[in-house]
Each structure stands twice: as C-alpha cells, then as structure tokens.
C-alpha cells in the first residue's frame, strides 16, 4: 500500500517532466503550423 504522499511524488514528477516536454514540442509545433509551404 502506497501512501498518498508517495503516489503524489511519482505523479507530480511525471506530470512536471511531461509539461516541460509539451512546452518545447508546442513551440516546435507552432512553428510547424506557421511555416508557409
């Protein structure tokens, strides 16, 4: 049985790392969408 604190340590780490990756990919995606052919 995991305490809530332990499970939160895992989920928050994953979520924060994912958020940073998303921010970077968002920038790339925005540039991709904006680039005229």
């Amino acid at each position, binding site marked *: *049985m*995991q*305490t*809530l*604190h332990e499970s*939160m*340590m895992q989920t*928050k780490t994953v*979520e*924060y790392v*994912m*958020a*940073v990756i*998303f*921010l970077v990919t*968002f920038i790339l995606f*925005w540039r991709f969408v904006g680039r005229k052919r």
Partner: protein
Amino acid sequence: MSANRRDFLKLMGAVGVGNLLGTESADASAPERSSDDWLGMLTDLTLCIGCRKCEWACNDVNGLPNRPLEVFDDQSVFERQRRTDAEHFTVVNRHIPGEPGAKPVYVKVQCMHCNEPACASACLVAAFRKTRTGQVVYNENVCIGCRYCMVACPFSIPAYTYDKAFAPVVRKCTMCFDKVAERHEVPACAKICPVEAITFGKRRDLLALARERMQHESARYVNHIYGEHEVGGTCWMYIAGRPFEQLGFRTTLGTTPAPDLTSTFLSAVPLVLTLWPALLMGAYAFTRHRDELAQTGEAENAPTTREEG
C-alpha cells in the same frame, strides 16, 4: 499491566522491528511496502503520573541540554502549557478538569508521526520522509530553512534553532529512529516510563491493544483513539479517560490527510502549463491577424467585398 503482557509486547516489538530493519536502508522501491509494517506508540493517559522521566530520557538520548532526574520532580513547570521547542522534543503538560476533586491528567506531547505527514508534503526539498517503519525523519543536509513545515504541521510540533546563524535546523521527535533501526531497541520514553503508560509496537497491534483495553474497562476510557483517523491517521496514538478537547488536543482537525489539501491545486498546474500556451498564442495570433487586416485595409482603402474561404 501484567509482566507477561509487557514482555510479550516488548518481544513483539523487537521481533517486528528486527524483521523489517534488515532492509530499511535498502532499495526504497521494494514491492512489499505496507502500512502494516508501521511502528507506533500508544500513550494511555489514564496511567501517566506526570513524573516526566520520559522528558529526561528523551533529552538524554538525543543529546539535548539535560538536568539531573530530580529536577524533573518540580511541579511548578506545570503551571503553564508548554510546547515542543528546539531543546525539548517532548513535553508533558498537566490538565486539571473542571469538577472539584477530579484528578489531574498528564499529557505527553511530541511528533505524531503522521501516516500522511504534512511536513513531508510541504517540504520543497523533500527533507522529511516517512520511513518504512513509520517514523517521520528529517534530513538536515538538504534543508534550506524556509520553515514551511512548521506552518503546515497541524500539531505545531517542529521547532527551529533560530539562534544558530550558520547551521540552523528543524528539530522534533524521531521516535528514536536511530536506536530502533540500529540497535533494535525500544524508544527511550517508552523504555523509561515507570508505569508503562507508553507502549511501543506495530501500529495495527497498538490499535488492537487500545480497543481491547477500552472494551475491558469501558468505564475507564473515552470511546475514541486519538490518532486513529485524525488527519488521515498517525502512528502516535492516545487513549484517555476524559474527552480529548479537555486535555489540550486539537479535536477539529478532521480526517483529511495533508496531501489532499493541496492536491487539487497541484493537479491544475500541469494543465495550466499545457493549456496556457495555446490560449495565449491564440490571442497573439488573433491580435496579429487583426493588425494585418487593419494594415491591408488602410493600404487598399477599398470597401471590403465578401470572399469565400
């Protein structure tokens, strides 16, 4: 308590502790983590006589400033309610009930070693952790001294060495974690208590013991184990002969564990990090589009015609 039961529980405690502690410092992601393994303390407030030998033993074992045992007999210390501080990991307070002739009740105060510690949830450098054996311990090697743990603790236990300029630390009861872990001993306060008001053992065994006492002598005890459910449950628990609110306990804490209090906000954070860029860049794109239209509108200076697309 009979000698048999005392020895039995000490044996159980030692065996249980011995079982677990071989792997305490090993890989923290071992699969069989269980709150069943948690150790705890049960304080029976109907037994405590206020001798404060537990305070002496705690000071002694933790290297805190101490005085000879006889000094602890001085009753004047009970004239005001004390709290834990940097040099006292535990204090005993006296509560005199309202009815004339009622006996005073002595209450030992110390870290409750919560199941879901607020201090651990609050600490931005994870200086607090709940060990596999249930004690909540502090790592002074990462602490930056922000004192948020002191704000968060619902029992107002952690103390700070404000007088130290170069290495101030947070201080609180450790349930003798080092003693228990390395030498398989019983924590100092439980060991020295002359009336065995404090019992050390597995939390679930202590709950069973408490229920058993309350069942056997129901007139003696109030029907509540303090720490069973408060703020999600604690490893240090109490049973008493009077209502807990008369004994200086906080009875309005509720059962919500500390991490639950901030989990909603913390869940929103990654959502904001993901959604805001789209919303804000959308606003920017809309603004730029509007500006482009305004500029081309000025350049052409012609009435707009409806176009497809």
